[in-house]
Structures are given as structure tokens and as C-alpha cells.
């Protein structure tokens, strides 16, 4: 301890540029490249949208629309990013959103009003996350299997609750939240929630011990265990977090669609995983980026928007979505390796 503790990261210059040794700046540059390439893809999309539909695409209302549509899946993706970063997977997110949204819109729940709907959505999400977490962390089940089982059960329960009916929300407070009158300085409340979840998610992953443990558990669970981290408890918390995000997303979806239906959240698991992966989160765990995930969600939503504005049909949209996933990952890898 002879050296005084100097301010961080000023020593970079003193480090000789030895062969493969990466400096902190190199790492930052590399991280930036990943983010930049995503921003590049987004920029290309904006140009395409702007050329094909200048009036409709480059419009405040359209921006509000894209961000609103991104909010629901965006919140789910933030939770998914944590789970994937920890080396896990949550296939049940779509089903949890469906279950939470129908449970929160039953006749009985609606009698409790706004608070009842919000609380039920969140608690159902947490409950499902708790079951996932217990099975995986303490029941030693493989995440793929445990959450697949949750997918099946939650979808089944959602169907049982609704009997396939669309449950229309009659609580004005909930409905108004999705309408133009409640925009805050032009920002829809749903987008605000998405933004808050994103910021909290970013801070949680990058600035807290929780985030560090998540990365450690994903990067090397054995090393994390031997370093004294309670790996199982961390895993439990992570699936709880994902469930919580699903509950919030379910509430947003209730606000957005003014209803609850058992078909809600269809294939969210795939959309969320795809967004996280093209964003730069490693499917094998150990590295995660909230910024990348959110950009991934925005890319997908923007594509859908451009296609709809240009009146292209769903078959073309699906083909393009697959192509974009491959292209984005390839572009990223190339840019990352040439720098």
C-alpha cells in the first residue's frame, strides 16, 4: 500500500502497448463500436423510412407510435437481458405477460380499480418469476425446461381464466393512461415507463453489486461460487426480476389495448431474446448490455413500422426480420473484429 490511491483510469497512458494487451480505452472503443453499429443499423432504417414514406414516417406522431409499440416488449427485454447475462434463459415471458394481463382484467379484479389491476399484474409476474426461480435455483432444473414448463402452464391458465374471451377494461383511469390527453410534454406515459425501466435496468446492471453478481454468475458460475457469491439466490432474484418486468409489461399492454386476452404476448420470448442478442448480450452469459437490448427492440419496432407504413404484408415482414437478425449479428462481428 505504498502508492497513494490516485484517481481512476489515468494510468492508461503509462501502460506500454504490448501485443494483445487491451487498454481500458480499447475496451471502451470496442463497446462503442458495438453500440455504434446498432445505431448505424437504426440510422439506415430511418433513412429507408424517410425515403419511402417521408411524410408519414418522419413525424412526431410516428415517433410516439414507434416508441409506444416498443414499450411493452422493451420492458420484457430489459428483464430478459439480465437473465441471459446470467447464463440463463426465460422462455415464459410471453406466457407470463398473457397470464398477468388476463388475471388483472377479470371482472373480479376490475372491481378493485386501477390499483387492483396494476398490483395484480405485477404480483402475477412476480409469482411466476418466483416459481421459475425456485425451480431453477433450488430445484436444479435447466432454465430452458423450467421456463418452457412455465410457458405451457401460464398460457393454459390464461386460457382457463378467459375461456378465450377478450376481457375489456372499463376502468377509466387505466384507459386514459394510453390516450393522447395524458402525454407528458408529448411523451406517452407508456414510453416514460419504458424509459424509467431502461434507466433503472442500466444502473442495476452497471453500477450495483446485483449487476456484478449477475455478470459473475453468467461468466463463470463456479468461480462466482468459489468467490463467495450465493449463486442460487442470485439466480432466484434474476427470474423474479424477469417476472416483475413481465408484470409491468402486462400492465402496459392492458393500458395500450384496453383489454386482456389470453393470446397476448405471443412469441415475446423470441422477440426479447432476438433483441438482446443483436444488442450484444452473449447468449452464453457473462456479458450483457441494456443499451444494446433497447436498441435491438427499437430496430425491430422500426422495421415493423416501416413495413406497415409501406403496406407490406406479414409474410414479407417475417422474412425481413430473420434477415435483419443475421445481418445485424454479422455486421457487429465484422466491425468488432476489424477494430
Amino acid at each position, binding site marked *: *500500500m*505504498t*502508492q497513494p*490511491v*490516485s*484517481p*481512476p*483510469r489515468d*494510468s*492508461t497512458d*503509462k*501502460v*506500454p502497448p*504490448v501485443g*494483445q*494487451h*487491451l*487498454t*481500458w480505452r480499447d*475496451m471502451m472503443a470496442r463497446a462503442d463500436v458495438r453500440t455504434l453499429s446498432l445505431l448505424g443499423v437504426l440510422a439506415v432504417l430511418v433513412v429507408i423510412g424517410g425515403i419511402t414514406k417521408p411524410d408519414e414516417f418522419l413525424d412526431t406522431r410516428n415517433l410516439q407510435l414507434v416508441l409506444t409499440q416498443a414499450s411493452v416488449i422493451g420492458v420484457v427485454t430489459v428483464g430478459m437481458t439480465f437473465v441471459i447475462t446470467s447464463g440463463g434463459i426465460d422462455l415464459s415471458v410471453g406466457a407470463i405477460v398473457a397470464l398477468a394481463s388476463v388475471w388483472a382484467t377479470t371482472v373480479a379484479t376490475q372491481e378493485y380499480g386501477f390499483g387492483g389491476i396494476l398490483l395484480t399484474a405485477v404480483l402475477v409476474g412476480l409469482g411466476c418469476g418466483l416459481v421459475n426461480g425456485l425451480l431453477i435455483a433450488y430445484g436444479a432444473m435447466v432454465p430452458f425446461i423450467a421456463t418452457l414448463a412455465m410457458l405451457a402452464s401460464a398460457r393454459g391458465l390464461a386460457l382457463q381464466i378467459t375461456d378465450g374471451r377478450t376481457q375489456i377494461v372499463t376502468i377509466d383511469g387505466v384507459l386514459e393512461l394510453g390516450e393522447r390527453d395524458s402525454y407528458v410534454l408529448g411523451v406517452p406515459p407508456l414510453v416514460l415507463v419504458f424509459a424509467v425501466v431502461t434507466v433503472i435496468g442500466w444502473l442495476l446492471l452497471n*453500477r*450495483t*453489486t*446485483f449487476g*456484478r*453478481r449477475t*455478470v*459473475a454468475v453468467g*461468466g*463463470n458460475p*463456479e*468461480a*462466482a*461460487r*468459489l*468467490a*463467495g*457469491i*450465493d449463486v442460487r439466490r442470485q439466480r432466484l432474484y434474476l427470474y423474479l426480476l424477469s417476472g416483475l418486468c413481465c408484470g409491468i409489461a402486462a400492465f402496459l399492454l392492458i393500458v395500450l389495448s384496453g383489454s386482456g386476452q389470453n393470446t397476448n404476448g405471443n412469441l415475446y420470448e423470441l422477440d426479447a431474446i432476438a433483441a438482446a442478442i443483436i444488442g450484444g448480450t452473449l447468449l452464453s452469459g*457473462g*456479458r450483457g448490455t441494456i443499451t444494446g437490448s433497447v436498441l435491438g427492440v427499437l430496430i425491430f419496432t422500426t422495421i415493423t413500422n416501416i413495413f406497415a407504413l409501406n403496406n407490406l404484408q406479414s409474410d414479407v415482414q417475417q422474412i425481413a426480420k430473420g434477415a435483419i437478425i443475421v445481418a445485424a449479428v454479422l455486421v457487429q462481428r465484422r466491425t468488432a473484429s476489424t477494430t
Partner: protein
Amino acid sequence: MAPEPPLLTMSGITKSFPGVRALDGVDLDVQAGEVHCLLGQNGAGKSTLIKVLAGAHQPDTGTIRWRGEPVTLRSPIAAMRLGVATIYQELDLVEHLSVAENVHLGHEPTAAGFVVRGRAARASTAALLARLGHPEIDPSRLVGALSAAQQQIVSMARALSHDVRLIVMDEPSAALDPDEVDNLFRSVQDLTAQGVAVVYISHRLEEIRRIGDRVTVLKDGRAVAGGLPAKTTPTREVVALMTGRNVEYVFPERPAAGSVPAGPPVLQVRGLARDGEFAPLDLDLHPGEIVGLAGLVGSGRSEILETVYGARKPSAGQVLVDGRPLRPGSVRAAVRAGLGLAPEERKAQALLMLESVTRNVSVSSMSRFSHGGWIDRSAEFGAARAATRELSLRPDNPSVPVRTLSGGNQQKAVLARWLLRGCRVLLLDEPTRGVDVGARAELYAVVRRLADEGLAVLLVSSEVPEVLGLADRVLVLREGHVVHTAPARDLDEHRVLDLVMEGSPAT
């Protein structure tokens, strides 16, 4: 003299890896039909040599002749075509396939080029097993259901299914019971009777005496003796050949005799045992003391450390820190009580390879830099830098990814983690594995200095000089039992090797 040239002649083989010269001009000749034993301490170059022979490594210089003709073994397949098969310690069998399927894996007898003829495969497998003297193994059984010894035989059958002239066996008896070893030896003798040569690697001198024809001793990448008669060369001579070192590491000075604190021990191990791994063990460790565990691979060294640390659950006994028992099988309890482990497999068990040095160092003491879960990153960085500087970790920049560090510096990062945590008992498992020769002395000095500052260290190493040079007190282990305890200054390498290999002093 044999009228024809030896089956295999390797001469002047050298092979360097970054920072290490693993083979430094090794000569080896093997006759058809003999069992040629390779002896040497860990790091003497045995595994590198057999990897060269298996075509897995290319030698830097030197020639290999096969029946007198010069050959190059560009790949494992090329070696296989020539007739060299290697059976590694970690058997590469597929547990969920049958014996016959394993034996013929990759070259299944087929009809019309793709239809596997199962009956033909089973028949030829049965013939091979009979040739090895083990007709009782059913070719249609799953390999996963066989014993370790039977799996060895299956590996040999697989080697024989190619037209093999030379089989390399890397410590084949390590996992076997005595009567299983007898079976194995019968098979080996059957093979050599058929003119197949066997290169046999083992730590156990008594085995070499029983089965070997000739012995080549490796030390520090050289063959210090070639072709000694296996049955008659005195043990003392073999051990002397294995230990007479050229390179001597510089070990830090021990504190003067009697300066090991007489106060209460910080760590007490009482009757700690794990079934099948190690027998009940008692051990006291005082602040400032370095205790070494010496023993061969499989003697239970690492298992003892991991059980003390709570990473494995003991079947009996307990661990006490400051007289208070730890919850058995809980790493967190051990860490909280002040234990720290630098495990054997650094990359697999200790390091977060994608992360920076800072984060690797701070991972066990995050609560020190966080308030309500919120990390104060400049405090974290400062503390990590202070800890890594104290250990002279290079480069002097904890922001670099830990994967870019050399082995010695990665080990320092692990030590810095526990230093930062303020740990009081450090468990070191093979601390210099994968560490350059030059960096070792520095690491030894660090460990001694930490001990001088009051740390208690429990050291495990398969390198006897390391244990003798660094530890104050040594426990010699053989097959899970402590066979000898003595101050390090009262032991020498020769005697320890006798103890670990034969269990009794052979003088």
C-alpha cells in the same frame, strides 16, 4: 542387438511454448513387443512428449523414425495411420454408446457405405476383447455402465481396432483398484506377446518394476537416462535421476526456527474426511505459518482444500476458525470466516475471463465499495489497484481484461482478491501451475511475505521442491492418507518422493 531397427526412434526432440522449453532434446527408442516406461515428475515433459508422439504437437526440432524410416506426424490421424494409438488419462469414450459402437467409432463396418453392420461390429469387438483377455465384457453394453478398469480395456480395444503397433498409456492405473490393475497388466502382457509395443507412463515405481522392460527418465525436458532395465535398476538411482535438478528455484527465507507463532491456531481441521477421497484429517494452522500438502495426482490434495473451503461437503469431521466451527459445505460461511481459495484451475474456477482485473479482484469484497448495493467505482478501482500493486501485478493497470494477463499475473489477481477481502487463511492449490519459471520465484516471495504479515497458508502442490521450499511444515499424502508429517527443513525431495510413491521410506 536387434537385427532390425527399433520400432520407434525419437531423437533430439525439442518443443517450446511461450516462456517454457518443455522438451529440450529428448531421445527415446522403443522396440517392438516391449513395455517402455516413462518416468518423471510433473512438468518433466512426459505429456508433451507423448503429445508429440500422438501427432497433437509438432516438435520444433528433432527427428522421428518409424522402423528406421524418417516420418512426420502432422496430425493425430497421421499418427493413427502409422499405427500409434494413445490412451489418455481422461478416457475419450462416449458413455451413451455401446462398447462395440465406441470401439468402431468413426470407422464402423458398413454395408453399402452407410448402413452400420451392428452384428459385424459386435463380433469384431468381441474378438478384440478376447485378444485382450477380457471376453467377459459384452460388446452391446453401454460404456457408461462399465467400471473404470473395463473402460480402460475398451480404450485399448479401440486402439487395437486400428492396426496398432504402438500404444501409449498415460497413467492407466491411476483410477484402478489393485485387482483391476492386475487385469490391466495381463492385457498389456497379451499385447506385447503379440509384438505390440507399449509406452507406459506411471508415477508408481512398483508398477514399473512389475510390468516394464526398460525405463526412460525425464527431467526438466531432457531424457536423463534412457533404456535402463526396469526390473533391476535400484529405486534410489531412479529417484536420484528424477530429482537431481539443474534449475533451482529461489525460495524466500523462512522465518528463524521457533518463530512460527505458538499462539492459538486460526484454522483447525478435526477428523475431516470424504468417503472415497481422503481419510480423516487433523490439522492446525497458525497465523504466519505455511503448511504444505505433498502428494501425487489423486492423493486427495485438492479435495482436502476444497472440503476445508466448503466447496465440497465432508462426510465426517469439521473445520474451525478461531475455535468456531464452520457450517459444513458452505463456501459463503468459509469466506465470511476469512478463508480464501486460489483454486487449481484458475480459468475455470476463479477468474471471470471476460472481465477486467478490477472486477476480478473486487468480486469477493463488493460490499466494501457499495452503499445499499450501489458500487462506488472509484473506491473499487483504487482498492483493486492498491491490492494489485502490492503484489506487483503487471501491467500496472487493473482496467485491462484479466484474460490478457500471463499465468503468474492471473494468479496474482486471484491472490489480490483475497488480500482485498482481508482473508486470514489462504488455501493455495497448485499456485504455480501454468506460471513461467521466472515468475515463480516472485510468486513464492509474495506468498511468504503475506505469511510474514500474519496470513496462514495451506499449500498444495504436486511439485515437491515447491512444497519443501515454501512450506514450514509438510504433510505427505498417499491415496488419501497422511503418511508423514514433518518440518520442511527435515525433509528432502528424495524422501518425499519415496513416501508419495511407495508409502514407506525406501532407503
